[in-house]
Every structure is written in structure tokens, then in C-alpha cells.
């Protein structure tokens, strides 16, 4: 039997993308890891007293300060001469990372702490009932960007977090998806092998908030990547090292599976705008596989 560092028995919803991703991250990191968690779904469903799903040392303080608490943990390990051999992970959801926690994250990156920051991006404040965050995609119907006679949902595109963290000059930035498990775990391992601040943003479908069938989490995660809406990219020392190449599928395939986009299905203008976002990603990162390259990824060094 495989021993996981994140146990079953927690209280996440059926089909929760974040719980799966969290397990993949910690299993790829190994037992010599200290986890600092922002407030959010993951903290709530994995540590309800007196139980805990975590087999590694784990601490939760507040919503927005995981990056700063982790900085303190890392500084303490350095002081004790124990940093080598212990991974420090700070992690949170998209709101705790890109909105309320952005300042603490920026400080952690700028100061050069040897920490991997993991953002579980389910594209809204799911723990409080699917309110709009800075990483909510364009036209998503959330409880604070609801559709109405005057609105088709969230009016802004996603905050470009990978570019924001990249601008800090940190050695490793990647996006991943719970739909591509091996790619996700490879990136976590690679991040830990590099000294300094690292950032991985993982796309994690949320059946409750996105309103999709709980059995389709992986499939929907894959579709986000395969449409070009969630490019899987990997930067090392500022250089784009690898992207997952795709045979782009139309964005409708991704949108139609989810209640949060259901209102767009007879709105060709809005769909066109979303297709433009995907096309622009495809162009920007050269995501489209050449006919001869049917394998799903292009790796510079592998």
C-alpha cells in the first residue's frame, strides 16, 4: 500500500481538485517538508480538530500570511543550520495568494527565501461560497459577479500571477493542472531542487463552485489546458523552458461542462471573447503542436 503524506478521511467535497493536488504536491515533496497553509478550503477540510490529514509538520496562521510565516520558518531553519534537507512549502488558494496575500508573497519572493509557494487556483473564494477573486476568469458567474440583465458575470480577465511573480526575478515559476498529474509532480520535485523562491500555480477544478459533475474534475482540468485557457508553462531563471503543447480544442467544450459559464452558451459574442483569450495564450506561448509533434509536450531538456 502506498503511504501518502496527506491522508484520506478529510472532509473535502467529492471531486475536489484541490484535495487531490495537495496530496500530489506533498507526496512529491516527501516527509522532510514543513507546510505553511493560508486559511481556505484546504485548511478547513484537512485539519478539523482533533483530526488532521497531514503526515508532515503543518501550520496555519491566517488568510494572507502563509508566505510570511513560511519566511519565519525558513529563517529559523537557517539559524539552526537545518535548512538543507528540509523543504518549506507555503500554500493557499487563489484569493489568499493573488488578492489578500499578494503583499506577503511579494515580500517572500523579493527577499529570496528558499521556499516553494503553491497556489491552488480554483478561480474564486470557494470556502465562503464562490465569490469572485482576482483569478476568476472573464465572464464567470460567481456569487459576487452574478449574471443579470446588465451583466454576463465577471468583467475582468484573470490577474496574470505567473508574470507578476516572474517579474520578481525568482528562479522557478510554473503552472500546472490537476488534470496532468505526472507533469504536476515533476514540477514540484524540480522546484525543490532549486534554491530560492519558487512559485507553482495549480489549476484545480471545484465541482461545487464551478458547478460541474464531481466525476469530471480531471477531464475539465485537462480541457482548460487543451483549449489554451490555462497554459502549462515553466520558467527557469526567467527563461521560458517548456510549455505543454496542445491540439487546441474550441473553448465551448470547456465552458459547456460548467454551470458557471452556462449563461454564455447562447451568447456567441462572449464565447468569441473567451476564444480570443485562448488564442492569445496559444500565440504567446506557442502552444500549438506541429502536425508531426503529436506527443503532448515539448520539453527543452527532456
Amino acid at each position, binding site marked *: 500500500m502506498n503511504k501518502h503524506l496527506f491522508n484520506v478521511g478529510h472532509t473535502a467535497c467529492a471531486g475536489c481538485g484541490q484535495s487531490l493536488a495537495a496530496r500530489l504536491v506533498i507526496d512529491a515533496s516527501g*516527509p*522532510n*517538508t*514543513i507546510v*505553511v497553509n493560508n486559511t481556505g478550503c484546504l*485548511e*478547513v477540510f484537512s*485539519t*478539523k*480538530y*482533533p483530526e*488532521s490529514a*497531514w*503526515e*508532515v*509538520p*503543518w*501550520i*496555519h*496562521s*491566517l488568510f*494572507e*500570511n502563509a*508566505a*510570511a*510565516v*513560511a*519566511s*519565519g*520558518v*525558513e*529563517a*529559523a*531553519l*537557517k*539559524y*539552526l543550520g537545518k535548512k538543507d534537507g*528540509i523543504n518549506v512549502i507555503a500554500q493557499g488558494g487563489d484569493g489568499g495568494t493573488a488578492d489578500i496575500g499578494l*503583499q*506577503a508573497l*511579494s*515580500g517572500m519572493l*523579493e*527577499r529570496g527565501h528558499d521556499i516553494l509557494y503553491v497556489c491552488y487556483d480554483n478561480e474564486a473564494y470557494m470556502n465562503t461560497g464562490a465569490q469572485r477573486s482576482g483569478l476568476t476568469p472573464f465572464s464567470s458567474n460567481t456569487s459576487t459577479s452574478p449574471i443579470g440583465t446588465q451583466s454576463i458575470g465577471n468583467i475582468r480577465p484573470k490577474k496574470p500571477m505567473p508574470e507578476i511573480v516572474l517579474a520578481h526575478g525568482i528562479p522557478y515559476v510554473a503552472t500546472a493542472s490537476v488534470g496532468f498529474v505526472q507533469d504536476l509532480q515533476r514540477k514540484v520535485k524540480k522546484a525543490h531542487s532549486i534554491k530560492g523562491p519558487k512559485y507553482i500555480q495549480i489549476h484545480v477544478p471545484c465541482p461545487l463552485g464551478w458547478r460541474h459533475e464531481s466525476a469530471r474534475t480531471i477531464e475539465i482540468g485537462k480541457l482548460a489546458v487543451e483549449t489554451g485557457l490555462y497554459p502549462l508553462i515553466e520558467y527557469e531563471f526567467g527563461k521560458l523552458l517548456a510549455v505543454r503543447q496542445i491540439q487546441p480544442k474550441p473553448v465551448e467544450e470547456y465552458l459547456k461542462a460548467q454551470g458557471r459559464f452556462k449563461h454564455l452558451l447562447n451568447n456567441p459574442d462572449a464565447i468569441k471573447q473567451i476564444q480570443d483569450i485562448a488564442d492569445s495564450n496559444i500565440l504567446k506561448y506557442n502552444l500549438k503542436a506541429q502536425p508531426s509533434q503529436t506527443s503532448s509536450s515539448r520539453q527543452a531538456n527532456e
Partner: protein
Amino acid sequence: MKEFIEGSFAVAEIVKLCKPGVISAYPITPQTHIVEELAQMVSDGKLNAQFVNVESEHSAASVVLGAVAAGVRAYTATSSQGLFYMAEVVFNIAGLRLPLVLTCANRAISAPINIWNDQQDSVSLRDAGWIQLYAEDVQEAVDLHLIGYRISEDKSMMLPVMVCMDGFILTHGIETVDIPTQEQVDKFLPAYRPLYKLDPQDPITIGPLVDPDAYMETRFAIQKTLDEALGLIPKVTAEFSKVFGRNYNGLIEEYRVKDAERVIVAMGSVCGTVKEVVDELRAKGKKVGLLKVTSYRPFPAQVIYEALKNTPKVAVLDRALSLGSYAPLAVEIKAAFFGKKKKPEVISSFVVGLGGRDITKDSIKEVLRLLTAKEKSCEFIDLKPELLKESYE
């Protein structure tokens, strides 16, 4: 060794002698000289610590929280808006039962912005679950840091300590201060041994979600511990006196209270001024005294009751307010006598020295003049009537 030294530098010296492994701070006047000096010590190799320059007070408090959770003694300092900005973390540190010493260089709260001294900042955070100790002079501020670490890290406590020292008056005042030796400090303050820490060899979960089934017990436990601190604090200060020769009670100080007919109750540097006035008036045969509150949290209500139960008239000085209600220290002094048979005939409340307004000997004499049979509530001293004339018609 005795040194003629600025308050901030003296505090930096004692913090260094306490050997924190992680220091984190964000600059705010009048706290800056303390952390600048510590940063210099680290840069010069005189202090082996990780100095983490953060982007906010919220992160400063979070960094030291993380460091203590990882098993290392830590230190931070702040003032005013900085303390408020870290308020959420301040409560969190106590809730997580992490020992720590934080210096609050007391400063007024905005708006209007004002960098000068009063005690609204730390007094406003009285409910956070911290031990709050107020220093009268630089020597006491230095000693309270050392005493603070001892109390905070005591296995029966595991709660943070805030050492409050009046901004500028103490942080930038220069006094002759006895700075202890490393040997003395090491003898008094053993290396930090956490009860729990983040350790891959023994993984634990810190800071879980606690629902109505258990939350209340966590708050009860802090309340009970702070109650027990009323016993521990004088025990530690007695031990301190044996090693260092300076006597503190740690909870209160009674200055010529025994036979006094009028006693002023105060916290912080103003106590020095009050002592001078007491001496002057005593020389003229007037029976006045001072009760200094050192420990505002835990609040030593019983000790204060015993000290003042036979005093006819008491004046309480507050350098903070609970706007729309009474002055905070006065409320608690009054509460200490509520329902008791023996109590002062009068407990009057005076608000002094907000936003750095000087509290002179004349201010104290004015308080005593107004301490009559007619009880005063929130009586402002040294107000400028010419600034209150504005009309809105």
C-alpha cells in the same frame, strides 16, 4: 555595566543578550532605533541572528510567529499604526500559544497622524491574550525584556509578552543604565526549549480549525494562564532581583502609598514625574502617593485592591481612551473595588498627555487639585480651550 545610553540602544543591547535567532521588523517611528541597532549588530557579526526585513508589520509579526513555531526564540518591535496593522497576527500568536517578546514604543493613533507618545496603541490590544508590561524608565524597560522572555517561555505560560515603553520619552531618552553581562543573562534565561515545534522528525499540526466543540476551552485556557501569570510574574521578578539586584514586583509598584490620603494611579514614564511631585508634596507634609501599574495584562485587581483599599481618594491617569465610554485604566481600577466594603471614597479619572502633550509637574498638581469629593470621569487635563471654539453654523 553602567552605560549612559539611549533607551532604544539599551533595549537593543538586552535583546541581543537574550539571543533571539530570528528578528523581523518594519520601520515605524519611534521604534526604528531599536531595530536599526539590532540590524547593525547582525551586520557586524556581534549577534548571530537572521534579520528579516519585511514589507509590513503584518509580515513582521507573521515571520516571528513562524520562527517561534519552528522552535527558535524571536523578537520584533513596533508602534502605533504598526501595532494595529499586525493586530490580527498579535491575537493569532497568543491563540497559538507561541512565546515571544515584542517591544511597543508607545505612540498615538491616527487620525490626525501624530508620531508622539500616548498609550492608545497597546491599550487597544489589551484583549489579545498577551502579557502587557509597562516600563517607567529605560532601566525598567531593559529589565522587562529579559523578565519578559523568562515569563513568556515558562512552560506554564507559553504566551507572548509586550513590553510597552513610551515613545521618544523612553526610546529616545538617554539615561544611565545597568546593562547586564552575558553570563548573568544566560544564568537567568535558559535557551528556548519549545513544548511543540514544526519538526519533520515528529510532525504535528498547528493551527487547525476548531469548531464550537472545543473553541471555548482554548480561550478559557488562556484566561486561566493569565490568571496564573499573576503568581508567576512576582516569582520571576524576585528571582531577577537576586541575580541583578534591582527590585521589581512586576505587577505594581507602591510609592509612598501606605499612609497616603491621595494616590495617583498611572502606567509608564509619567510615573517618574508623579514620584517627583509626591516627594515635593510629602516634604510639605501632604500625604500623597503613587501606585504604578506595571502589568496591565494580566490585570492585578486583587493586588491593587489590597494596596488602595484604605486610601480615601484615588486619581487614575489614562494616556488612552475608549472613545464614547470611560478611560480604560480607570474602569478597571474602579472594577477592582466594585462590591467591596473597603474602598476609596472617590476614584476620579483623568485623561492626560494624548498625542505627546507634555505631562508636567503642574499637570500632576492640577490632577491633585481636582481630586476632590466630587468624582471626575474622563476629566481632560491641559486642554487648550482656544482650540475648541470652532463653530459650525
